[in-house]
Each structure stands twice: as C-alpha cells, then as structure tokens.
C-alpha cells in the first residue's frame, strides 16, 4: 500500500476578484521513494506540498476527492489529530533557514523543544538526541552549533539544522520544499546525499519540491512536472530526457549547458502551453 495517496487535489484562494485556483486537480501516490515535484514560480508546487500537511490558511481552502496518509484520511481528520501527525510522522523542510528558524532561540533549544514537550524527555536525554541528530546531518562540531543562534550559522549549516530538526521524530514522510536552493553547489551535493541516505536507511518517503529540473532528474526516482496548477507530465526521472510534453521539453532546453552552443537559448513558447 502506498504511503500517501492524493486524488484530485485543489487549492483555491478566495480573493476580491473571485476565486483563484493555485492547484487545479493534482493526483499522485507515493511509496517509500523519492518523488520530485518541479515547476516554475506560480506552478503550485509549494502549495501542493503544504496542502498535504493542511498548512494552507484562509482565505485558501483545500479540496480533494481523497487524501490518505498510511491508510488514514488526512483530508477530514480533526485538526487535533492532524497536529499529532505533523512533525512526528510527516516532516517538512522549508526553503530558507533564515526565515524558518527562530532567530532569538539557540539551535539547541529549538532542537530539544519538541523532544522535551512532546516526548517528555529529560534535559540530558533531549540534548543527547539533538546532538546525535546534528551528527547525522554531518555537522562536525555539534556542541558549538547547539549553543549558536541561527544568524551565527552559514546557510548550509542552517539548512542542515532544519533537516536535523525534522528528522528527530523519525517521520515516515519528509516534504522538502526547495531545501537546497539557497545553498552553494558543493554544499547542495552534501545536503542531497544526507537526504538520500535517510531515504535508503530508514525507508522514508520523500517529496522533493524544486524549480531545478536537472537536480530533480538526478536525485529523484519519479518526477511530476507542474505548470499552472496542473501536473503536465509524470515521468521516471531516468527517462526525463525523453519527456513528451512540450512544457517539460521547453524547461529542459532553455538551460545553458557547459560547452553547449553559443547562440540564443531556446525560450518557452508561452502561448502554446
């Protein structure tokens, strides 16, 4: 049985000028695998990720035919039970560590907060577990990082702290929304290999949301290409180069390549799609 099943998901925002649909009927199912969702700004990829956790606030609303996680109906689940699911069974890594970590709390306090309140661990146990989590994301000096404030960390470190924080409760599903977009390429590779290891070792499911088709192609098993709130193509990552939909092809072709031709890059024909 699949871990997550989403059927005909719609996210609608009621605005002064009428309803705007950010996601217009997205269906997918996810096993213990790496699913990539790619698309440009405004394609609805982030909204899809947030809708799975029911993290869309009014005036936005979520509708779907079905949304089940591990056999439970998460579409109609009471908010109280949903809260118990968030973090513990479904984790989310946001794009920018600068805005997602609490700037006035040390990393250590943020990491142990959940352990102490939710799991009712003692101080020493919580600290030990937090340090283990930091080590799992390959932070070399976890004790220093525990005492640091977010602004004292580099972008790559901050992003690793966020991943560590999400991994402490050992979720079954991790939704990572552009987890490496703010990072340098070499750091990006490290963060990806950490995520990769977690999927392999723990059998975690991963939804990897990104605007970077090439990154997703290399990192994920399966890719959903989104455009204007719709999935235009679902394809095995290995076959991405054989993509059929003109939008996917356009996205691939407009990227410059090292050693590629010097002429004007092909641009997307926006009238067609």
């Amino acid at each position: 049985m699949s871990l997550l099943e989403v059927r005909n998901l719609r996210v609608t925002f009621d605005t002064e000028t009428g309803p705007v649909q950010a996601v217009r009927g997205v269906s997918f199912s996810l096993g213990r695998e790496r699913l990539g969702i790619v698309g440009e700004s405004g394609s609805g990829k982030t909204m899809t990720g947030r809708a799975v956790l029911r993290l869309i606030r009014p005036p936005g609303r979520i509708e779907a035919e079905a949304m089940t996680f591990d056999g439970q109906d998460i579409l109609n689940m009471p908010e109280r039970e949903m809260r118990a699911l968030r973090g513990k069974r479904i984790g989310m890594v946001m794009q920018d560590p600068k805005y997602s970590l609490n700037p006035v709390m040390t990393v250590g306090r943020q990491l142990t907060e959940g352990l102490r309140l939710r799991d009712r661990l003692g101080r020493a146990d919580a600290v030990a577990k937090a340090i283990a989590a930091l080590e799992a994301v390959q932070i070399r000096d976890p004790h220093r990082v525990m005492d640091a404030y977010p602004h004292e960390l580099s972008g790559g470190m901050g992003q690793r702290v966020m991943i560590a924080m999400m991994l402490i409760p050992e979720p079954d599903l991790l939704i990572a929304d552009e987890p490496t977009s703010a990072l340098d390429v070499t750091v990006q590779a490290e963060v990806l290999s950490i995520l990769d290891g977690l999927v392999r070792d723990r059998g975690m499911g991963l939804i990897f949301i990104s605007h970077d088709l090439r990154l997703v192609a290399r990192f994920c098993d399966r890719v959903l290409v989104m455009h204007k709130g719709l999935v235009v193509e679902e394809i095995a990552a290995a076959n991405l180069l054989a993509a059929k939909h003109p939008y996917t092809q356009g996205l691939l072709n407009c990227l410059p390549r090292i050693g590629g031709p010097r002429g004007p890059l092909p641009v997307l024909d926006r009238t067609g799609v």
Partner: protein
Amino acid sequence: MSFIEIDNLTVTFRAQGREVRAVEGVSLSVDERESYGLVGESGSGKSTILRAICGMAPVSGGSIRIAGKVLPAQRGRAFSADVQMVFQDPYASLHPRHTIDRTLSEPLAIHGMPDRDARVVQALVDVGLPPAFRFRYPHQLSGGQRQRVAIARALMLKPRILLLDEPTSALDASVQAEVLNLLSRLREEQGLTFLMVSHDLAVIDHMCDRIMVLQHGRTVEEISRDDLAKANMNTPYARSLFEASADRMLGSTTEPAR
C-alpha cells in the same frame, strides 16, 4: 594594454576590531568587447570585486584601471557614464515607489542629457518591453520584466562596461534564458564589455569567453571557455565545482548532441 586591468586587488572589511579579507591579491584583465566571468561559491569575493570597481567596497591594496586610467577615489559622473552595474535581485534593486519612467530618467537628469522622453521609450524597446510600461511601478511587473528594467536602467547612459552580479539567479529557468539572450544581443548591438559574476558555471560558460574561479577571496584558476568544455582544469577545486554543477546532472546530454 587591456580595457579593464585589475592588479593585485585586496579588499579588507573591518568590523569590531576584526579584519576580514574578502578579496586577496586578485589580478585580471579584460579586453574591450570581451565577456569575462567570475565564478565561485558564497564568500568567494566575486561580487566584492564588482563592488570594488564601483567604489562600493573598501579597497586596501592593488589598483583598478579602466582604459589605462587609474580610477579616482570618488568615482564621479565620468565613471558612471562608462561603467554600470546590474544587480542580482530585481525585487530589491528597483525603487518600489518610483515609476519605471522615473527610474529610467533619473540617470539622464543627473547627467543633464536631452531628449529624455525619447530615450526612455527607446530603452524600453531595446530590452523588449512595451513603452506603456513607463508608467508602471515595479510591483506591477514580473521578476523577468523587472530585471529587464534594471538592464535598461544600466544602459541609459550608453556605458561601455556592464558589471553583472548574478543577473539571472533570482529568475525561473525559462525567464533566465530570455534575459541571457537579451544580454547577448545587447552586447552585440552596443559593443559592450561584460564582467559577469555567477555561481552557475553553465550560465557563465554560455555567456563568457574566459572564466576566473575564485575561492575564499583568492584566484584559484583562470580557464578559457574551450578548456572548460573539455573539462581541462588544473586545480581540484575548479574540478569539484565543475562536477557539482547542476549541468553535469543530466549526464548523457552534455557529451553528445553537438
């Protein structure tokens, strides 16, 4: 003699008694109408070099010459008529409460240029925007349109050198292609010299003839475009950047297809 000559440039920031050398002993030279790229990761000093040319960074050593002349300490009007910069984030680099018209005509007013009306319209046409956009505010434009305005603004005074600081990294892939094409066309049409900074090796490779790889404020290696295409680099760091470049991730397409 080269058009832009940077010799042994060092930039030192001082804060709370600590000194940080953002750039250390970097030398480079760019010919007229050449396109030169600076690549490196965050903190490599690539943007600082551009800012140092504009007089926006504390230069503590070395020299910068343009067309053989050492730049004066106060850059002044003659400098801005020759050298202009395009910044990374078009959401931050345009004044949110000035119309596009005001943003574009300001440099003309400062430099006392005539025919402002016609020049603003021409500038918009040059970057592929409808002239009616004059009376819009930045928030009424998309990211790609804003970056076009930022490029138009930089070209108002007909400069010879354009300093490009990650001009497309805040944009979507398809919009990036449009802006890169625009920059290539303008360089051709107006005979511009580019000094371009990016963390994306594929973008730099597409746009530039020669490339300098920087790390921790120092030069790692200078590579020609041909050598980059052949993966002909001498230092392990340049190679690791090349290997980690997102472009490599599509493996099979990079090798054949040419």
